[in-house]
Structures are given as structure tokens and as C-alpha cells.
């Protein structure tokens, strides 16, 4: 597949709809709404943010409350372009988490998810992934519409991961592509071993002094959960719009926020930073694997990058693992 096809495809999607993708800014590579194809960053650098806020908006209207009526407005044709493998894994998890969610599913049907890899070696160095590797059978275990792999010789390989993706490629006159059939999130050999290892590690560590240490460090600001591509906690709230119309909205939340477990009489369960951070790790490494046989942490390292207290998730896991070995 030549570079010409790649350029043709990119121009095609810019003509068709709104393109959200990685672009280089002074602060680094970020995902945002792109105006032109030249703005796309194809270096394979993991963007500072992810695609989460585009697939799970920080706030969205679910329906009008007075009277109750569903908002059936057609959504824009949106292309999430240049989604790294790690972010694809996070979006795949969301497909399972929000399986019964009509809002997520209808948005997902309108969106095109276009994955991109700038090459194995390059990825690995720049992503600083602590536990992920690009493997041959990776693509059949993630959900996407189109995946583009940049090869070492500078050419591009196209993969279609859905019927929607196939049709898109054909409309863009990209005919040289391979079909990848999604065979489920779990590999033929069973869930990855590290899922079980990390699950055991976190589930059995509740009394470990690490959590006291982290509780003393953690500011409970919630930045890690906001940036995390697999965090999806939400609140449902009744909110007036600017015209005074009362609407049921969904707003992204965080288990670090003070109201998260608040019940009648101002009683709360997650009070200390220690409890909150353990709850957060537990969700990623125990509850999600328990529910979906999938990892709740894709290893992007964004949480460690944004943490004002310098808490590093990879180091903490390593610490627990090392002590376990002793």
C-alpha cells in the first residue's frame, strides 16, 4: 500500500466529516479536532490526552425531563483518527462496559474508529509501555473500523475491522486492505497471565503499607482518573440548559471526588486518600478483570505523567510484585 493511498484516505475523511486526531503542539502531542490533514501527527507518539472525551463526553444530555422525551438529534459523522493500540484497547473495554447503554452505542455507530501504528519498535520506545507489546494477533482482539500500520519502508497497510470500516475504505477507493475479524477480547490461549497476577497482587494487598504511603502522598485531585483512558465513572444529574429546559444529563465523575460515595446524612465510605487510591487501583486491576476478563489498565502511563504528587502506577505494581517474590 503506497503513501498515495494513505494521503487519499486522509483527504477523504476530512471531506466526509469531523476528524479528531493527534497533533503536535508546544506542550506535546494532543488529540483534538483537526482542521486539515497536514496537522495530523504521525510520529506514533502517545498523545497527552486520549480519545475518551470524544467517545464519553464530560457532559451529555440524555433526555428532556419536562416532559420526558428522548433527544433523537442525528450526530455528526466523526472520525477518531490515529487511535493508538493502547487507546483502542481502552475503547474496546468501553464497548463491553457500555454494552447496554443506548447513548454510547448510538454514538459509537455514528463514529469511525481509525487505529494507527507507526511501527512496532518506534511504538515501544516512545510509549514507555510497562507491560504491552505489539503482537501479531493483537488486532483481532480489539474493536476498530479501520487500522493503518506504517511499515518500516514508509508504506502503509490497511485493515478493516468492521463492515462499516470496509465500506469506508471502499468509498475512499482504498481497495488494498485486509479484513480482520474480531474474535472477542480474550486471546485463544485465555486471558493474559498478567491480568491474574496483577489481580491477585492488588486484591491481597489491602493491608500493605504501600497504601498508607500513597494515601499520604495522594492529593485526591482525580487528575489520574480524568486522563485515564479506561476510567468511566459517571453521575446522572438533572440540569437546566441555557433556555431553562430541565434535562437528565450524564457527567463524567471520579472516585476521588468528595461526593462519590456520599449518601443520606452526609455519610461517605471513601473518605481518606488511601481508601480512594486503593478503590481506584482495585477497579482497574481486580473489578474490571473480574467482570470482563480484560485489563482495566492499558499501561499508557498518562496517570503517572499528570500526577502532581509523582505517584507512578507502574512502579507501585512493581513494588508490590517484588515484595511478593521475597
Amino acid at each position, binding site marked *: 500500500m503506497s503513501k498515495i493511498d494513505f494521503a487519499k484516505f486522509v483527504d477523504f475523511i476530512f471531506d466526509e466529516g469531523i476528524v479528531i486526531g493527534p497533533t503536535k503542539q508546544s506542550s506535546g502531542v494532543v488529540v483534538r479536532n483537526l482542521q486539515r490533514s497536514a496537522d495530523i501527527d504521525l510520529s506514533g507518539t502517545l498523545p497527552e490526552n486520549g480519545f475518551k472525551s470524544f467517545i464519553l463526553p464530560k457532559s451529555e444530555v*440524555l433526555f428532556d425531563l419536562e416532559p420526558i422525551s428522548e433527544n433523537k438529534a442525528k450526530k455528526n459523522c466523526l472520525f477518531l483518527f490515529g487511535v493508538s493500540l493502547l487507546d483502542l484497547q481502552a475503547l474496546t473495554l468501553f464497548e463491553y462496559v*457500555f454494552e*447496554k447503554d*443506548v447513548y454510547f452505542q448510538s454514538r459509537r455507530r455514528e463514529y469511525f474508529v481509525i487505529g494507527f501504528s507507526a511501527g512496532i519498535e518506534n511504538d515501544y520506545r516512545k510509549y514507555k509501555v510497562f507491560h504491552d507489546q505489539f503482537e501479531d494477533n493483537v488486532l483481532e482482539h480489539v474493536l476498530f473500523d479501520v487500522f493503518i500500520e506504517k511499515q518500516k519502508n514508509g508504506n502503509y497497510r490497511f485493515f478493516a475491522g468492521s463492515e462499516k470500516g470496509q465500506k469506508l475504505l471502499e468509498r475512499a477507493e482504498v481497495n488494498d486492505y485486509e479484513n480482520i475479524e474480531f474474535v472477542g477480547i480474550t486471546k485463544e490461549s485465555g486471558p493474559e497471565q498478567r491480568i491474574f497476577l496483577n489481580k491477585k497482587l492488588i486484591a491481597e494487598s489491602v493491608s500493605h503499607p504501600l497504601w498508607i504511603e500513597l494515601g499520604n502522598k495522594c492529593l485526591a485531585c482525580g487528575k489520574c482518573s480524568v486522563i485515564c483512558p479506561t476510567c468511566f465513572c459517571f453521575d*446522572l*444529574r*438533572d440540569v437546566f440548559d441555557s433556555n431553562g429546559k430541565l434535562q437528565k444529563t450524564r457527567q463524567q465523575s471520579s472516585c476521588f471526588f468528595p461526593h462519590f*460515595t456520599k449518601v443520606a*446524612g452526609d455519610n461517605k465510605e471513601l473518605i481518606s486518600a488511601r481508601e480512594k487510591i486503593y478503590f481506584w487501583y482495585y477497579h482497574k486491576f481486580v473489578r474490571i478483570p473480574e*467482570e470482563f476478563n480484560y485489563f482495566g489498565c492499558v499501561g499508557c502511563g498518562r496517570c503517572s505523567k499528570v500526577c502532581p504528587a509523582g505517584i507512578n502506577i507502574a512502579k507501585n505494581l512493581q513494588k508490590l510484585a517484588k515484595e511478593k517474590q521475597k
Partner: protein
Amino acid sequence: MKNIYLPKKAVVLAVQKENFDTATLFLKMEGQADFEFLPGQFMMIGLAGFGESAISISSDSRQSKKFISLTIRSVGNLTQALNELKKGDVVLVRGPFGNGFPEINGETILIGGGCGFIPLRSVIASNVERLADLRIFVGCATAKNLVFTADLAEWEKKISVKVIFEKEIHEDIYPEKGYITDLLSKEILNPKAKAFVCGPLVMYAKTAKILLQKGLSAENIFFSLEKRMHCGIGVCQHCAIGPKYVCKDGPVFDLQFLLTQKYFVL
């Protein structure tokens, strides 16, 4: 695709004042004729502008195709507004959610603390023909806080109903003041019995300890938990307890599971 967040309208058929801060709303919702629930399950009830809250069903499950009742204590903005409703008003409901209590098949001890007695009322009302299997224990701050006073008097004619108040003594009811755990610790309980417990979290650890000491087995002791909830289907994470969700896998959990959770360590 079904929209799980979209509530149904329910008309208030009647309001029954239980005490100074608690009222029972009798509701008939859209599709009531097809409605079924299990005692111990709950509804998300809301009012436009006030949000939603998880409230246990207090009525007889065999009447579910005609009406349900929700007994609500006024403790916040929404519950206060719900307590002010009148016959003919409309509320928004979703549900039923959760698992409910196990079926009654043998001696069962019902232990309710304060407004925690509400889901237990549904257990009793749905099993009146098995009333002889039940023993009822109620703990409450004062007589003013008691709910279902008339029901308790009615049941007391047939089975053992014991009520203790934390802050006052009513000689005719119980000769001492204290917590429900004080009441239980003096009782002889059948070790083969089941126990259904609902009340504030503070009473759970001690109640569990007493029931175990009395010889009941952890898999026969069931607690109904209260947690903040938003979605009701185990997605939003607010009500997560260890690997499970109170809204989906609960609100009723057996003690065997709860003992694996850190704040139930005895």
C-alpha cells in the same frame, strides 16, 4: 435498543404518614400490570429537578401488578420533596433493581434498624402465610422514629416482635434502652435459622458478630446494603463493593461475601 435510563411515570395513589419524617407512597406506574419484584429489591425514584434515589420497596410482592409502595425518610432534598407529595402527584421510577432477599423456607430472623426495617416489611407482607417462620427484631432511636407501627402491632398478635429504643424506655414495649445488638445478644436463636438484616452500616459488624456467636452460619446471614447509586445496572461505579455492585449483585449479600470485604472484618 432499550433505554435503561428512561424512567416511567408513576401516579401517587395514596400517601401514608409513617412518622414525623417518613411517609409511604403507594404508586401505580406505567405498565404496572406487568410489574414484578422480589422483596428486598429497590426502585430508583426521582422527581424532575431533584435527581433520583434508590429506595426499597415496602409492599407485598404479590400485589405488584396492582401497585407498589415505597417508604421514604426525609433526609435530603429529593426525599423531602417526595415526603411532601399528595395523592395524584406524579413521580419518575426505574426498576426494580437488585437481587432481593432469599425465599423464606424455614425459621427466619428479621432484624431492622431504624428505617432499615423498610425492605423487611416487604418480606413479611409477601409471606403472611409463612408468618409462623418469622421472628422480628426492630431497633430504633425513639418511639417517634418507628415505622409501620400498625403492622408491627398486627404481627405481634401472631409472632414474636421485639422492639428496642436507643434513647428512651417504654416499659410496655421493652424494659431497657439500647441498641438492637443489645436486644439480640440476650436472645436464644436457632443456629439453623436464617437472618435478614437491614439498617445503618454501624450496626452491621456487631450484628454479624452476635449472630455468628449464636451459631448461625455466615451463608445464612444476609445484609441489605445502602450505597450511593446513579445508574442502577453496575456501570457508574458509585456502589461498588469489592468485585461486586450493590445495585446489581446486591443490595442483599450474605455474610460469607461481606467478610471478605475490609470494613466487615470482625
